[in-house]
């Protein structure tokens, strides 16, 4: 892009020297944090499955970045996306590499403050900051970004990032189950298909799209297998599973599927031998709320699983983890039109993102949670919200009412992209876990 010469509309000019200094310090911290997190995760489970080794390596961005750069030199395009609504199948069908570019760096959020006020969602601020100093490898390699206009933050984030790179916006209808919404979204998907084709120069044909859909379906199968394994006694630590889910956002999908299946094989072996990751009577916790992005924003899962008393994460409802792959693309007939319909419906209608409302009372998220609680035997729910995410915060009362009826304790935890409140959060989380274990003892 020749955006270097164009005057930036939003972001301030930073000297190359400052950019480099900032990037180097943040990258160094980030590498340290990645190593630290993984070290902690290794320690938490003494006989951690060997298959997780691969995901530990993938968690370190360096190797995957190198791989993508090699692919890029061969002429493959990279398309970044910021919300789950971007049609990954279309990107794959055009032979491009999909990567999710949401940023989890705490320090980058402070840079974002120079552009947008602190009240804004920290993930948005962090993504802006990461772009300003070229911190995120995936943001840097992306030839284009798909910005789906979900919440207000995401809407403006795409606009701000267009200072640097090409951004394609997709209008997302807010009522998700009406006929006219479906039509609008279908048209958006079709238009996106055209844009992807234009960028990559590859025509998306029936065969390519079919194999792309089958590829993600296989990934969904592996993903679901992993989640099913978490239903019984904890065979894998929640953080490990979350990391596996999250690496899907930037990994080669075919390889990810293979490795996840291999992990599941090992976990099944463990179930047979009754080797548990932690004592089976550990309180079973679910997180719901705003996304948590590797590497920095890992504090809550760490606190839950390393608290005294410890809990174990067995499920979550985060768009950075379990919601990525929960719903498959269900194709009736393998014709182009039906495949596109299937893709558009899968992204629009099945989503439980709170940015939607619906004609029929919007029960989807509640049903999702209730189903998870029942099937996965959840004993407590932590409702995690970034300060600034109004949509998740506003849905809390509704969720709480339903969970109260089920007699499932739910705890509202709001936080920032900062390490400073870890101590305070620790007290809050541990009190909650204490209460859960007391309930279990009773």
């Amino acid at each position, binding site marked *: 892009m020749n955006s270097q010469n164009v005057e930036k509309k939003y972001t301030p000019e930073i000297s190359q020297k400052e950019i480099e200094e900032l990037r180097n310090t943040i990258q160094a911290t980030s590498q340290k944090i990645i190593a630290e997190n993984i070290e902690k995760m290794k320690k938490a489970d003494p006989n951690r499955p060997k298959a997780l080794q691969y995901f530990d390596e993938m968690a370190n961005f360096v190797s995957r970045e190198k791989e993508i750069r090699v692919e890029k030199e061969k002429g493959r395009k990279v398309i970044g996306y910021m919300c789950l609504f971007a049609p990954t199948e279309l990107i794959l069908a055009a032979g491009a590499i999909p990567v999710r570019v949401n940023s989890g760096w705490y320090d980058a959020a402070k840079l974002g403050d120079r552009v947008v006020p602190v009240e804004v969602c920290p993930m948005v601020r962090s993504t802006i900051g990461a772009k300003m100093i070229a911190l995120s490898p995936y943001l840097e390699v992306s030839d284009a970004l798909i910005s789906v206009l979900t919440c207000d933050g995401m809407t403006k984030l795409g606009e701000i990032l267009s200072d640097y790179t090409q951004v394609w916006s997709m209008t997302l209808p807010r009522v998700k*189950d009406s006929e006219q919404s479906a039509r609008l979204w279908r048209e958006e998907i079709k238009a996106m298909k055209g844009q992807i084709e234009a960028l990559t120069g590859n025509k998306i044909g029936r065969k390519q799209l079919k194999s792309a859909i089958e590829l993600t379906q296989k990934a969904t199968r592996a993903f679901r297998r992993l989640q099913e394994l978490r239903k019984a006694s904890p065979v894998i630590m929640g953080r490990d599973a979350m990391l596996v889910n999250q690496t899907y956002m930037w990994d080669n999908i075919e390889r990810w599927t293979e490795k996840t299946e291999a992990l599941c094989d090992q976990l099944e072996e463990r179930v047979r031998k009754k080797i548990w990751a932690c004592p089976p009577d550990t309180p079973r916790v679910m997180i719901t709320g705003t996304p948590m992005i590797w590497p920095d924003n890992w504090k809550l899962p760490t606190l839950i699983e390393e608290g005294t008393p410890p809990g174990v994460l067995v499920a979550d409802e985060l768009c950075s983890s379990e919601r990525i792959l929960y719903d*498959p693309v*269900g194709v009736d*007939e393998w014709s*182009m039109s039906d495949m596109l319909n299937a893709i558009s*419906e899968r992204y629009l209608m099945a989503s*439980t993102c709170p940015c939607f409302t619906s004609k*029929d009372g919007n*029960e989807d998220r509640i049903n999702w949670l209730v189903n998870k609680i*029942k099937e996965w035997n959840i004993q407590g729910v932590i409702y995690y919200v970034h300060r600034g995410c109004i949509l998740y915060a506003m849905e809390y009362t509704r969720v709480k009412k339903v969970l109260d009826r089920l007699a499932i304790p739910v705890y509202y935890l709001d936080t920032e992209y900062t390490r400073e409140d870890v101590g305070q959060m620790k007290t809050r989380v541990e009190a909650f876990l204490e209460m859960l274990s007391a309930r279990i003892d009773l």
Partner: protein
Amino acid sequence: MVMELLGEVLKLTVLTGLTLAGILVILIWKKGLATKVTYFRFVIQAVAMVAVFYLFTYPVWQLIVLIVILVMPLVLGRFFCGWLCPFGFYMDAITLLRKVLKIRYRNLPDRLNIFLHNFRYVLLLIFLGAPFILAWLDPPPSLDFATLMALVFAGPFEPLRVLLGPVIPLIVPWVGPLEIGGLYFSYPYVQEVILYSNMAFSEIFVTIAALIFVALTIVGSFFVRRVWCRFCPTGSSLAVVNRFRGFKWAPALHIDKDEEKCTKCGICKRVCPVQVTEVYEQKGGKIDTSMCMLCTRCVEMCPYEGCLKVNIGGKTVFKSRNWLEPSTVE
């Protein structure tokens, strides 16, 4: 002569097909391979068609088939439409052909679909009343009351046989209205209306009805899935039981939905060949619509374990499963 021989060969082929299909059904059932319900259903439809073909050789069986069709909905709802009806089989076969030809299907607008669904009762009335109207417009020379009654209840036209319309195979073993080289063809609903032959007006009516029907089913099936089922008058007789409040309990076979497992992904709505929206829209519990013909395509395609279930009298016979996984239990 050659054609007659061909007819015999055809009959034999069909019989062999019946046997093979029967063996296939048993195999599929035994090995628990009935995961792809669509194919399973297709085989059953073929078997049913052939069975009906042979049954129709003997008039007494027609009566038995009729009784079965009328009584079955009390227990099985419109199971007949989805799984046994020969005409449904033709349309499904055309759907297969359509998929091979890569023609995409069109959806009817929902409101038109519902209108047609209600229109089927009008259509039924037309078919029931047509002979009388024809007789009135163009009376046969010796029509007195006694003859008319005789014709109505015992003659070539028996009102209730109209309901058997779509069950009559396209190629009929007896003498049909259309003969091409020794084989007799018939169109559902047409056979019944040929009442007072040698009358120009009846002939025209029959021809028009036949043309409309053939155009709708054979040509229309290339563009709209299960096009005739949307306003088939026979379906009305099956569906009518489900319509009355007092009979909501009646069909023991029905689809059940678990609200909590549903994510409203819309797959059930999209895959339904007759565009039933209730499975998607209803909040949960027993799916309550007379449009559904229980082909269970939605149950097959629903990707959430146990979200949709087919129940017979409280017992689950088939439920939706994570179809991404190879199924281990059926």
